[in-house]
């Protein structure tokens, strides 16, 4: 790699940042030249936040094309991380200057003194810094290393831990399984919960008893869900197969057939999270029940039409929230269920990304690779949340 290459990267990044912010500034009628200057600085800084710690290693001549592409991706992400917040910050400052009344904060009734709030916040901030922020940053550092627990020496391997994932069969398998299991948990879980909530939210006799009887699985742990379904789905003595055999004459290899095992995890997880979902849908339906009642008077609309044209749109903020929380549950919390129910098997058919991280990091003691997989999983969660927000966020009905 030539000595000028790093400089070239930042110059290009600065140009892109300058053009973008100049364009954004023009749209809110602020000098584009100022935008260009701020954008150039932001672009240059953004392109450096991953490249400087990595020492531009992705563009070394002996590295593969995948590494270089990944390097460009990192530059892009770094720029977005700096340029977009700067843009948002300046826009909000400009807007506040133009209407000083906006964003009036409820500062009436404030106590005097600046030391006391610092004392009140100190424990929270110290714990978050030491046990959340520091490990987060350390995860990024670890992901560029070949590191083992108990071994003092580490080896810098650039982005190998990331780019090797592309050709890692076990990892790609985990990826597909995670998407499948998560999608099934979200879709089945929310559909069932909404159906049940539609029955249970109404002011009928004994409503409170029904709700308690429906919501309690919220308090059950993923581990206990795994343990209980280990009994229900067991090949010998499992009551689910006993019932299926007697009624339909079929037996399913819930825990030893690779096509059925993911469903065992899905069913156990849907059962465990059902109470939580029902709770939120009942709260949501009660908030909009007046609108639903009014909708009942729409001439000639039948129950199905009313449901799809009135109830579902009114519930979209809650559905949006529940999709995110259920997805997070499926990604992370199913670990306990899987560990007791299937142990990731049979034939890795229930080895989700989180389970894979555990296997790679703890069982195989490859901390760098596990850290890299953690970061990809984190990016996946953030990415899906943003996509969700973009696609349904705009249509979400916040009027309720």
């Amino acid at each position: 790699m030539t000595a000028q290459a790093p400089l070239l990267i930042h110059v290009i990044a600065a140009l892109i940042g300058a053009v973008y912010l100049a364009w954004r500034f023009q749209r809110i009628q602020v000098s584009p030249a100022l935008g260009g200057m701020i954008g150039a600085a932001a672009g240059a800084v953004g392109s450096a936040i991953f490249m400087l710690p990595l020492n531009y290693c992705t563009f070394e001549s002996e590295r593969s094309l995948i590494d270089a592409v990944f390097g460009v991706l990192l530059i892009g992400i770094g720029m977005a991380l700096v340029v977009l917040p700067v843009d948002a910050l300046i826009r909000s400052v400009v807007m506040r200057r133009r209407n000083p009344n906006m964003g009036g904060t409820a500062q009436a009734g404030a106590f005097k003194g600046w030391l006391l709030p610092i004392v009140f916040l100190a424990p929270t901030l110290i714990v978050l810094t030491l046990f959340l922020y520091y490990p987060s940053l350390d995860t990024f550092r670890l992901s560029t290393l070949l590191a083992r627990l108990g071994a003092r020496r580490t080896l810098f391997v650039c982005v190998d831990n990331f780019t090797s994932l592309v050709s890692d069969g076990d990892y790609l398998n985990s990826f597909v399984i995670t998407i499948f299991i998560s999608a099934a948990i979200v879709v089945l879980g929310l559909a069932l919960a909404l159906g049940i909530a539609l029955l249970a939210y109404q002011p009928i006799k004994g409503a409170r008893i029904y709700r308690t009887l429906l919501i309690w699985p919220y308090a059950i742990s993923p581990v206990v869900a795994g343990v209980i379904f280990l009994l229900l789905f067991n090949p010998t003595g499992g009551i689910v197969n006993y019932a299926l055999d007697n009624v339909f004459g079929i037996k399913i290899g819930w825990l030893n057939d690779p096509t059925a095992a993911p469903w065992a995890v899905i069913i156990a997880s849907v059962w465990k999270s059902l109470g939580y979902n029902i709770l939120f849908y009942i709260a949501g339906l009660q908030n909009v029940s007046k609108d639903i009642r009014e909708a009942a008077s729409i001439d000639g609309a039948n129950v199905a039409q009313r449901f799809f044209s009135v109830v579902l749109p009114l519930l979209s903020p809650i559905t949006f929230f529940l999709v995110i929380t259920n997805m997070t549950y499926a990604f992370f919390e199913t670990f306990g269920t899987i560990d007791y129910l299937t142990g990731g098997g049979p034939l890795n058919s229930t080895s989700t990304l989180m389970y894979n991280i555990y296997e790679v990091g703890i069982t195989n003691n490859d901390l760098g690779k596990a850290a890299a997989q953690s970061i990809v999983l984190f990016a996946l969660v953030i990415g899906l949340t943003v996509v969700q927000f973009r696609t349904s966020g705009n249509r979400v009905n916040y009027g309720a």
Partner: protein
Amino acid sequence: MATTTASETYPADYVEPVRRTLLPERWYIHAALWVICLIVGFPLFYAVLVATQNNSNVYAYQFLPGDQFENNWNIVMNLANLGNYMLNSIFITVLVTAGKTILSLLAGLAFVYFRFPGKWIVFGFVLVTLMMPTEILVIALFRFVNSIGWGNNYLALIVPFIASATGAFLFRQHFANIPAELSEAAQLDGANPLTFLIRVLIPMSMNTIGALVVIQFVYVWNMYLWPALIIQGQERQVVQVGLRTLVGADVGISFGPLMLGAVIASLPPVIIFVLLQKQFMSGFALGRDK
């Protein structure tokens, strides 16, 4: 009131706007709800039943309580030592839940009732952590906690979890809705912020506190991956990991003791949930009003 105004605009032949919900109340709603409650409850009900049986009862699909409860209890408590795991879990969960509630109340107080430089940055700093699941940090956290010598120590299960972005955010939202006149009056009376918190804010926040206690208790009680990594040996282990000893690696599973263990391990969070159910639900309803 709103219903009355709305019904005035309806055609004259339109009657009973209140009764016409999406699905009218009929006996079949009750029937459907009972069936659903039974299906939802079946896994736990069956687990309770099996907790009194041995494996030959299970394999014979005997749907009546067995006579093995005492035997299973002995295995669970004396051989697997589940009582010790339960005490560890209770100790940790109570401390973390109490600590989280207190720290969140203080953070909410600082965010709403004080002016200090950089407040929005500090709030952002706390809020961003909502998006950082501990599971993702587990590898780095494991290295860090071991490096400060907390491996295999209760502190590793308590301190990292004692701050809560959820709680700080929940109380901030709740306090911001409380009229400013109250704190002005308290200041006129010469009350200091802590007196104001204890005498005025906390009594007004019981639902939010109840909701937070349920969420945190269930969350901490159900932790599995982190204690499994950081705690070696049985002495300080929590019950979610301790259940492992009942699965038994090579001899095959004895379902009776395993189910008894699972039921015992579920009792504390379920009891807390049922006791605080009212606060939990209205605490959430409050949060959703905005």
